[in-house]
């Protein structure tokens, strides 16, 4: 056992962890309920992707929950242009509900995906599989009129009425 080598490595790790960038990334992810730790970190409500990728050099779990952080808290991301292409692909796969996808920096797609789908303590967020996605449709006027009537009769919005009809299809 080379204790001296270990001590040097630990000294370097401690210095890394003192860096405000590391502290801020960890603080954000812990405060948002994506990670837990046995020490306190300060919290500021933003996430810098570059800093997160850098901090992940010593804490790989940051990568595991990063897609969930980006998808659940997009307004907190200060540098969305810094999201690497490979990570963008992961994000798109998760948003599409794909069960399979590319691993990223040694972290399995399945592990990254599962964190996007758990309820967080911030009740404003929704598991990705329950998030609604926009789609535009064009209907003939008579179809729109019928949809209006259908939704009114059932006390539903037009979106709810369509959801209702689609989900009933096939039994």
């Amino acid at each position, binding site marked *: *056992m080379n204790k001296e080598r270990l001590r040097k490595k630990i000294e370097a790790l401690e210095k890394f962890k003192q860096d405000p960038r590391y502290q801020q990334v960890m603080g954000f992810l812990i405060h948002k309920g994506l990670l837990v730790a*046995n020490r306190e970190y300060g919290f500021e409500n933003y996430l810098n992707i570059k800093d997160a990728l850098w901090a992940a050099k010593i804490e790989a779990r940051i990568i595991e929950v990063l897609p969930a952080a980006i998808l659940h808290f997009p307004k907190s991301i200060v540098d969305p242009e810094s999201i690497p292409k490979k990570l963008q692909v992961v994000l798109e796969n998760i948003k599409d509900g794909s069960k399979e996808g590319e691993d990223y920096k040694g972290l399995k797609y399945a592990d990254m995906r599962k964190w996007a789908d758990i309820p967080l303590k911030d009740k404003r967020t929704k598991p990705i599989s329950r998030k609604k996605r926009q789609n535009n449709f064009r209907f003939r006027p008579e179809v729109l009129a019928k949809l209006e009537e259908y939704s009114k009769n059932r006390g539903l919005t037009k979106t709810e009425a369509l959801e209702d009809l689609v989900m009933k299809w096939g039994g």
Partner: protein
Amino acid sequence: MKEILEKIFKQLDKEIIKRESEAREQGFNFRAETQIKLLGQMSLLVNESITTLIELNATRDVDSYIQSEYWVEKKFESLLKKEGLLLDKDRNLIWMPEETIFKTFFTGKYLTVLIPEPIYCLASKAIKAKEKNKQLIIFALLEYGDKLENLIKKYNGELEFFYE
């Protein structure tokens, strides 16, 4: 995290007691005795013998070996979910050294929860998930010395990886 898991286990034990009583009244079979071996990072986070020594980070999944009725497992899963925790679906794939010593973390009327002595959990991580746990194992090697090093060597772990 220790308090959260203790709360969950207390509630789980209460649910088992209730279920057992229902089983007796209604005449269906239900094996109330349940043992949960808490593993992985959560087992370290609840163990004061290591949390005072080493900084630990974890994702919110719970690894465990569960010996119980399926109903108990589902109940455990839903109690974890209420606290934002996930019961890891791959938990049965976790490998632990054969000489792992477990100690009691929680004892209820029917529920017993055990956690491994930290050194065995650390050896498991060093051997099976070395990249993800490099930082942790470096600190742990200094703390636990030759005993941890020998365990890693015994199971053909790549010790040099932590010195790079």
